[in-house]
């Protein structure tokens, strides 16, 4: 029998509150899927930019003066006080009231890494672009915009030359630090640790200390945390080394939704080796040029992103895409086999790419995923090859004894079909 004192009640409630907290966190956490992916994205962009920055930063300090236009001394300014820096920052974030308008650069030009596709160039991209240019060049874009979209957005800014110099001075910061992570996330690890501590406390209490007189609560805590720990461990163990949903930021904001969806470009137009080679291939710059030789303006990104492609071709530097679909090298996978011989649609594995602005990995690419498909997919028995080597299947199919033959029945589950 347990006597309920006031104190006892609080003691009983404490673990319940903690439990509730955990469940809440767990749920909210699982809703914002793919923490791990995010982390990866951030890393990439950081690494990617840092390299280039350092080299170029050195250039700037020496060359800034040379590149400046002589018409205004303001633009030549290279040394700033802390106050001026802060003003630059406030200007960038729209915290300075300029007459009747608020100009918030950060509203469109991300200063943090974002999950969603923002067609506007982010702060980092702009800062890189204007690193070797003077603030005067920047002022041209801000005060006298040319492009259609830009005209619409950069309307009648009342920025002074000093302001622009300060904005640029502030923006140069992104060169060195890169973009911030969007928001700090409580990782599952933290939750796991809390759960584990609770579990331990409850167990020890059950055996040794007996602070909580009501055994049921202790048992409930043990059960719930136990289930939670097992679940987290199992989920993470299964996802270990896999990257389902991986959607890294690409060097060019290329949208499959625009190309394959709206413009209805056939997958095989760009990924032309999918039918003839084991690899589907990333299209070479020359393929992009087929259209973008003429098409130089996009509806969303203006010219910025297309210019990157053209620039890469001009400079003869390949675009370094971040690879998404990746099988370990002990797996032999041939696109030709699946697309040409098997007649499988691209969507079967890659999902509805036509609706993806930012491409992400649809399947988990686990062996079970492969096998499940091999078990469920039918063989095209009209092929001469099968007629020659699988006459038994073909004849019983014709006789109506079987309605289909699955890949697995012709050796699609043999280990050595993929691993050699």
């Amino acid at each position, binding site marked *: 029998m347990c006597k309920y004192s006031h104190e006892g009640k609080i003691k009983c409630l404490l673990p319940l509150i903690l439990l509730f907290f955990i469940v809440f966190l767990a749920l909210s956490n699982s809703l914002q899927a793919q923490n791990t992916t995010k982390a990866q994205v951030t890393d990439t962009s950081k690494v990617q930019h840092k390299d280039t920055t350092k080299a170029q930063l050195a250039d700037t300090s020496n060359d800034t003066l040379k590149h400046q236009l002589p018409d205004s001394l303001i633009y030549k300014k290279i040394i700033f006080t802390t106050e001026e820096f802060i003003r630059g920052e406030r200007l960038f974030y729209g915290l300075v009231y300029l007459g009747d308008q608020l100009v918030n650069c950060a509203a469109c030009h991300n200063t943090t890494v974002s999950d969603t596709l923002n067609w506007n160039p982010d702060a980092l991209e702009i800062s890189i672009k204007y690193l070797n240019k003077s603030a005067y060049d920047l002022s041209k874009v801000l005060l006298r915009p040319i492009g259609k979209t830009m005209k619409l957005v950069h309307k009648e800014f009342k920025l002074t030359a000093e302001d622009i110099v300060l904005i640029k001075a502030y923006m140069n910061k992104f060169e060195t630090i890169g973009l911030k992570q969007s928001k700090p996330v409580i990782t599952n690890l933290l939750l796991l640790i809390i759960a584990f501590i609770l579990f331990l406390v409850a167990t020890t209490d059950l055996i040794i200390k007996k602070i909580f007189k009501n055994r049921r609560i202790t048992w409930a805590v043990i059960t719930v945390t136990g289930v939670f720990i097992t679940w987290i461990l199992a989920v993470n163990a299964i996802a270990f080394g896999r990257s389902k949903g991986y959607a890294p930021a690409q060097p060019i904001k290329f949208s499959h939704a625009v190309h394959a969806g709206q413009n209805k470009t056939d997958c095989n137009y760009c990924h032309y*080796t999918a039918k003839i*080679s084991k*690899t589907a*291939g990333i299209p070479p710059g020359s393929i992009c040029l087929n259209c973008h030789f003429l098409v130089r303006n996009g509806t969303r990104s203006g010219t910025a992103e297309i210019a990157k492609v053209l620039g890469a071709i001009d400079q003869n530097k390949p675009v370094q895409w971040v690879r998404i679909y990746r*099988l370990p090298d*002990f797996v032999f996978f041939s696109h030709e086999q699946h697309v040409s011989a098997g007649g499988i649609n691209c969507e079967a594995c890659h999902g509805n790419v036509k609706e993806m602005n930012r491409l992400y990995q649809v399947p988990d690419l686990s062996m079970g995923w492969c096998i499940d498909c091999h078990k469920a997919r039918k063989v095209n028995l009209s092929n*001469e*090859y099968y007629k020659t080597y699988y006459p038994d299947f073909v004849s019983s199919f014709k006789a109506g004894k079987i309605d289909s033959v699955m890949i697995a029945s012709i050796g699609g589950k043999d280990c050595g079909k993929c*691993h050699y």
Partner: protein
Amino acid sequence: MKKYWKDIESLKSKKEVRSTEKKPEENELFALLSDPGKILPASRRDFLKLCGFSIGAAALAACQSKVSKAVPYVIAPVELTPGVALYYASSYINGNDYCSILVKTRDGRPIKIEGNPDSGVTRGGTSARVQASVLDLYDGGRLHGPMKDGIPSQWELIDNEIIEKLNKITEEKGTIVLLTPTIYSPSTEAVISGFLKKFNGSEWVEYDAISYSAMLEANKISFGKQVIPDYRFDKADLVVSVGADFLGTWLSPIEYTKQFSSRRDPEHDMNWLIQLESNLSLTGSNADKRIQIKPSQETAILLNIYKDILRSVENRNANAPESPVDVNEISKKLLASKGKSLLISGSNSKQIQLLVNEINRLLGNIGETILFNSYLRTHKALDTSFKTLVKKMQKGAVNALLVWNVNPAYTYFDRDAFTEGLKKVELTVSLSGSPDETNSSVKYLCPDSHYLECWNDAEPKKGLFSLMQPAINQIYDTRQMADSLLKWTGSTTTFHDFMYGYWVENLMKLEPASHNPITFFDSVLQKGIFEPGTSKTEIIEKHLTPGILPFNSTSIKISKGPTEKTLEIVFYETVALGEGRQANNPWLQELPDPVTRICWDNYVSISPAMAKEYDLKDCDVLKLGETEIPVHIQPGQAYGTIGIALGYGRLKCGKVGDRVGVDVWRMLSAEEGNIKNTGKLEKIEKTGKVYPFAQTQTHHSMEGRAFVREAELKEFRANPAAGNEEHAYNLEHNKSLYKERTYPHHHWGMAIDLSKCTGCGNCVIACQAENNVPVVGKEEVHRVHEMHWLRIDRYFTGEEDNPEVVFQPVLCQHCQNAPCENVCPVAATNHSSEGLNQMIYNRCFGTRYCNNNCPYKVRRFNWFNYSAAGTLTGNLRDKEEMTGDLRRMVLNPDVTIRAQGVIEKCSFCVQRIQAAKLKAKYENRALYDNEIQTACSQSCPANAIVFGDMNDKNSELNRLITSGRRYNLLEELYTMPSVNYLTKIKNKIV
């Protein structure tokens, strides 16, 4: 560094470094292939970038969660599809070795050499050296660019200096000498003659380290032509070879193996081979009858044969000393197959070769088995001309010496004279592509490109042409020799253009049907060969009258038989290394010698009887003159002789080959101007040291077990299952408790004809190249850790002093009742529905139980981290640097690199099976017979290995496995292998 194939990021960093020196031609690298006229300057880094482009090939990467990049081409080359292999017909030319080949490239990298079946010379066969040559391409030890006085320089600077000096020498009437091996490329010959014309007073000296000059001289006397004739082993019913290892190293072994093995078909046509020799050579081990002789006895033996034959053919008598061996049988047999026999000698003594010619003439073989229509052009050098050159050099009479691809400072017996002379030469230029002993003391290095980077042509036999085309751009800043010569001659054309012109001008007319030079050249390029037929034959008269023949048996000197105690040394080339050109090739170094099964070393072979007499054991170190060399007791070595291999002990060939074995070239000597391959030794001196060998087979007897089943032809003719009686017994008595599985759709299988297999080792290297088999190094082989998936077992039968030899290639037998499968706890090895025993490396965690339970011991365990594919770091065992960036280019991207701690084994080249099946499905058809060729079967020079579908009733494989000769290895275990052996039939009929 080692991560090259793992991520493309490392590429990125490389590129950033490069950005300062960007070249506009970067993209045109592959244009080379479409536009043959252009040879582009490109650096090694460009090549590296190219390789990185194809993400498909980069699938060698391990599963790592870090970000990987996919870098496409900027402008995609038209002919190259990432992930699809391209084949280029080309030719392998390395010194005197020739082979017509197909080069398999993946994503711009040559990764495998296959034989070109269309060639009239090698007919689809290759040798281990040819197979391994692709690895030489990725040898980081090759010269990286032009050098002057050992300091890297620029082509333009060096060209100018050389041209200036050459002109000056010519003006001052000096002597310029071009020193090369035998050149049988017609275009190169034309370039050289242009060079000689341009620089008046220059000379061209050809020098072959392994000399056949006595033969050339003798043929000049006998037949009026200083050539090596076209030997036709396929036409000879009887081959008598006196010390000529024609299946292994003599003249043109690939061609001869093809010819010879075509006559080792007991069902149809079986020839007879008698070998008289001292060392147990590859040919000797395949002989039907092998007689051990000392080299000094050759003359006496041949004279006796001559005497017998002369008596019966021309009814004349000749003087002959007493024969050391009974030759009556040989003479009788030779006489019985007049016109269908062939007598050859491996000696480099003019009088012996004259004698051989005379006997062949008497037998009526000239024009039958010895032809001159398409004589062999790969050996043309005379020893005397080199000797003269050395003398001139010593006198200081040579002003400029241009050396290409010969290494007299290592291979010439009197190398001190050569190096001494070299110091007196004003201008010394080496055009060899790899560092060697000669070009280390040369002023200018103008490195030649690897043959896979070159344009060239060849005429290995008169009237049989072939082309060589680059399969990759220059990895290093090298330039091919002919281009250098053209440049120095003052020509502005490239060698490719020159060659094209030469072909259009001189060779197109041989093909009357062709009129358009471009289509003519392209069609030849596509096939790789141009064999316009032998319509314009030149017939050597069969019967020269005795009076005219400058041969007189009485003029033959018989050297006094050395005293019994004097030992005779026989120097020979090994099948793998030859004269040592490819000594820096780890594949070849690790290829066990077919007969001794030793790799990574040379040694003194002595007979067991002698070993007993001198109280020697295996691995004891002897002192011969100044060199110390270990002993290997070799059954079959003639008593009183010792054999030592040449081509070892190099000092400046690179990290792999340096100081491997002992250099014995100095022990050679010359006689009548011709370099003898024999020597004498007064006594054997023991040092008391012991030197362990890396030997892959240490037990040489079959212990009465029927691994290799043999029969004599006579028995076979009476009973096709002769020697194979057990097979029927086993078929009847082997029963399973379970219902036997069937493989009704495909059932892959193989047949290996032991009658044909010569044991040359080509398949071992072909397999190694195809399947990314690691190299483990000498110490590891010594610890019985070798990794070859396919090995050739060699057994001795009969007496210890005169054994018979049998070879048996053993690979995974793909048993239907595989013992290995039962015991693997994680099912990492199991059976496919097509009858393959599959090994899944990524599932394997290395209990080695399968290996224990494999009665054939064909499974190989990765004892250490040989391949840098494992998860642990800091434990790489790669002495031969096979995991370096460059060497890894040779890896086949379709085959997984195995990690440390994993079992691996033959897969029946499942990647090829799958590719062929895919192609058939894609083309909506059934497979053709022999469409699927494993690496070992494709290039077998003896056609001993046949692969196919055992269910296909019309296949060649089915014909073989239904023959009475078929049996399975250890069939009494009822493992039901898919590899079938055909009994070895020896022709012992007298």
